C-alpha cells in the first residue's frame, strides 16, 4: 500500500536543543496514528512540522507522495484541530467553517454545500449562526473538527483535541472521532498524552520520548509486548510492577532477586533465553487472587497496605517480602489494609527488560 505520509530522517533543533532526532515514520492510507508521550517529548512539535507550522532542521516530509517539506500549511492537504479549539472569536460558526474556503477562492455555493455537509456530519446545524463564545466546550471542539472537515483534505492532524474537556465529554467525543474516522477513512494523526485515548483510537501508536520514537506498533503489541522499560512503565494505569534481579538460565530460566526467586519458564524471550541483570515487570491486572490462583505458577503471600476502591475494580497496594506491589481486584472484593492474602501470576504475561539497556529480552 502506498503510504499517505512519509517522514524521512526528520530532525529539528532550536539552537542547541534537539527536539526531534532523525525520525522515520511511514503512515498508511486511512491509518489512525497516535503520537503518545509525556509533555516535552516532541509529539506536538512533530505534528507542527507535518502541518508546516515549524520549519524542520533536516529531513523530508511527503504527503500523498508529494514532497511538502517547503510547502505552506494550506498547500499540504491537511486539516488541523487544536487543543484550545482556536476558533476565530469574532466570526460565527459558519464564518469559522468557511474562512479557509474563502481564502482558497472557492465559489460561494460550493462553500455553502461543504459547510452544510460538515455541519450535518458533526450535528452542529443549529449552531451555525452563533459565535464561539456562545458554545459549550464540546460544541466548540466539534466546530474545530468541522473546520478541518470542510477543506476536504486527505490528512487530519489532531493536537490534543480533547484535553480541555471534562472526563465525560472526552469519552463521548473520543467515540465520535473514532466513528468519524470509520466514516471518512482519512489518514489521521492524533497527538495525546492520554493513554486511554491512544489505546482506544489508534491503529498504531508511536510512543515518543526525548525526540525519539520508543516504539511504533499496534495498541495490542504496545500493551502486551512493550519494547523497553519506558514504554512498559508509560502504558497501563496503574503502571507496571517492576522487580530488580538477575535472570539465571543455567537450568530452567529463573528470576532471582535479593528476597525472592521464582521459575519463569512460561516467558517467551525475544532471542531465546538470555541471562544477566534484569527488570522483571508484571502488570497489576495480571496478578490474580482467589480461585484464579490455580492458573498462576508463581505465588506469594502479600500483606495489604492500602486499598483504593474504584467502583468497577479495586486497587490494592501490598508488600511481598518487603517489596511493594500493586494489583487489581474485583470491585466487590472485601479487602482491608493489614489483610494477609495469597497472590500469583503467570510468567508468560510478564515483561523482562535488560538492566543496562532497558530493552525487552
Amino acid at each position, binding site marked *: 500500500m502506498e503510504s499517505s505520509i512519509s517522514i524521512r530522517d526528520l530532525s529539528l533543533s532550536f539552537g542547541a536543543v534537539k527536539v526531534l532526532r532523525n525520525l522515520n515514520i511511514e503512515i498508511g492510507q486511512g491509518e489512525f496514528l497516535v503520537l503518545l508521550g509525556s509533555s516535552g517529548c516532541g509529539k506536538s512539535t512533530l505534528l*507542527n512540522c507535518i*502541518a*508546516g*507550522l515549524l520549519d524542520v532542521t533536516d529531513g523530508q516530509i511527503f504527503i500523498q507522495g508529494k514532497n511538502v517539506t517547503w510547502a*505552506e*500549511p*494550506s*498547500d499540504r492537504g*491537511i*486539516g*488541523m484541530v*487544536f*487543543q*484550545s*479549539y*482556536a*476558533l*476565530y*472569536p*469574532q466570526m460565527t460558526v459558519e464564518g469559522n467553517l468557511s*474562512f*479557509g474556503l474563502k*481564502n*482558497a477562492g472557492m465559489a460561494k455555493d460550493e462553500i455553502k454545500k461543504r459547510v452544510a455537509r460538515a455541519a450535518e456530519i458533526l450535528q452542529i446545524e443549529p449552531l451555525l449562526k452563533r*459565535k*464561539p*463564545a*456562545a*458554545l459549550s*466546550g464540546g460544541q*466548540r471542539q466539534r466546530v474545530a473538527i468541522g*473546520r478541518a472537515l470542510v*477543506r476536504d483534505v486527505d490528512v487530519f492532524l489532531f*493536537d490534543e483535541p480533547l484535553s*480541555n474537556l471534562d472526563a465525560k465529554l472526552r469519552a463521548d467525543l473520543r467515540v465520535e472521532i473514532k466513528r468519524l474516522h470509520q466514516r471518512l477513512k482519512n489518514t489521521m494523526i492524533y497527538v495525546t498524552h492520554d493513554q486511554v485515548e491512544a489505546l482506544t483510537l489508534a491503529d498504531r501508536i508511536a510512543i515518543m520520548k526525548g525526540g525519539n520514537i520508543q516504539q511504533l506498533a499496534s495498541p495490542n503489541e504496545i500493551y502486551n509486548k512493550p519494547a523497553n522499560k519506558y514504554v512498559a512503565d508509560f502504558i497501563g494505569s496503574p503502571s507496571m510492577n517492576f522487580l530488580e534481579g538477575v535472570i539465571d538460565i543455567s537450568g530452567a530460566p529463573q528470576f532471582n532477586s535479593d528476597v525472592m526467586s521464582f521459575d519463569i519458564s512460561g516467558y517467551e524471550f525475544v532471542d531465546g533465553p538470555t541471562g544477566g541483570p534484569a527488570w522483571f515487570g508484571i502488570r497489576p491486572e495480571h496478578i490474580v487472587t482467589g480461585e484464579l490462583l490455580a492458573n498462576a505458577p508463581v505465588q506469594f503471600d502479600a500483606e495489604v497496605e492500602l486499598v483504593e476502591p474504584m467502583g468497577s475494580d479495586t486497587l490494592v497496594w501490598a508488600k511481598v517480602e518487603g517489596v511493594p506491589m500493586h494489583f487489581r481486584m474485583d470491585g466487590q472484593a472485601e479487602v482491608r489494609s493489614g489483610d494477609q492474602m495469597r497472590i500469583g501470576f503467570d510468567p508468560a504475561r510478564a515483561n523482562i527488560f535488560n538492566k543496562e539497556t532497558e530493552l525487552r529480552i
Partner: protein
Amino acid sequence: MADTAVHPAASSEPRGPKPRKKLSRNNIIIYGTLLVVAFYYLLPLYVMVVTSLKGMPEIRLGNIFSPPVEITFEPWVKAWSQACTGLNCDGLSRGFWNSIRITVPSVIVSIVIASVNGYALANWKFKGADAFFTILIFGAFIPYQVMLYPIVIMLREIGLYGTLWGLVIVHTIFGMPILTLLFRNYFTSLPEELFKAARVDGAGFWRIYFQIMLPMSLPIFVVAMILQVTGIWNDFLFGVVYTKPDLYPMTVQLNNIVNSVQGVKEYNVNMAATLLTGLVPLVIYFVSGKLFVRGIAAGAVKG
C-alpha cells in the same frame, strides 16, 4: 416551630453572611485618606474654574476661593478668539486647529505602523527580529534633547522643516518604540493556536492581520490611542522646535498667552485658556474609559 424550641440559641449563633461594620477603623482610614487626597487634587481645578468665570474687578478683590458673584463667560470667549499671542490676536482657536491637524494624522500613522510592527514581531519571527526589537526599544531611552538638532537638519534636507507634516513625522517616529512594545506584547498574549489555525486555513500576513488579529485588538488600540492623543496633544518641545509661529500647536500658544508681559495679567483669560487646552485629553479619557476594560478575546480559547 419545634426546631426553634429545640435550638433556642440558634438565632444568635453565626449563620449566613458575616455582618460587616460600616464604620470600622479601617474604613474610616481608607475613606478619610481618599477624601483628603481628592480634595487636594480638586482644589486647584476648582480655583481655575471659578476664576475663569469671574470678571477682572472681582479677581482683584483677592478672594480666590469664593465662587463668582456674577458669572461671566467673557474670559472663555476672549481666550478662544481674541487673546493675543505674539503677532496674532485671534486667540487659541488657531492653535486648537493646528493641534488637531498635528494630532490626528500623527496618531493614525503611528498606530497603523506600530500595530503592524508589533504583529510582525509577535507572530512572524523573521531572522534578526529580536535584534530589531531590542534596537527599537533602546530608542525609547534616548533623551529627546539629544536628537533635537540632528532632526532639524534632517527635516531641512527633505524640505519639511517648519511644516505640519514634518512635526507629524517626528511624532510618529518618537511614538514608535513604546507603541510597538505595546502591540507586540498584546499580540503575543493572544493564543498562538489561533494564528496557526489561520495559517492552516490558508490566510497570509495581511489577511490574518485584518481578519483575525485586528477584530480581537480593540482594547489595545484604545490604549494606544489614549497614549498618543494625550502625548502628542500635550507636547510642547517638538511643537516649538519644528514649527513656525503660524503653525504652533495649542500648548505653545497657551504658553505665549499666559507668559505675555505686556499689559495687565488677565488671570481669568489665562485660566480659561488653560482649561480649554486641557479639555481634549480629558474628553478622550472620559469617552474611552469604558472600552479600556472590555475583554474582546472571550470565547477564542477554552471557556
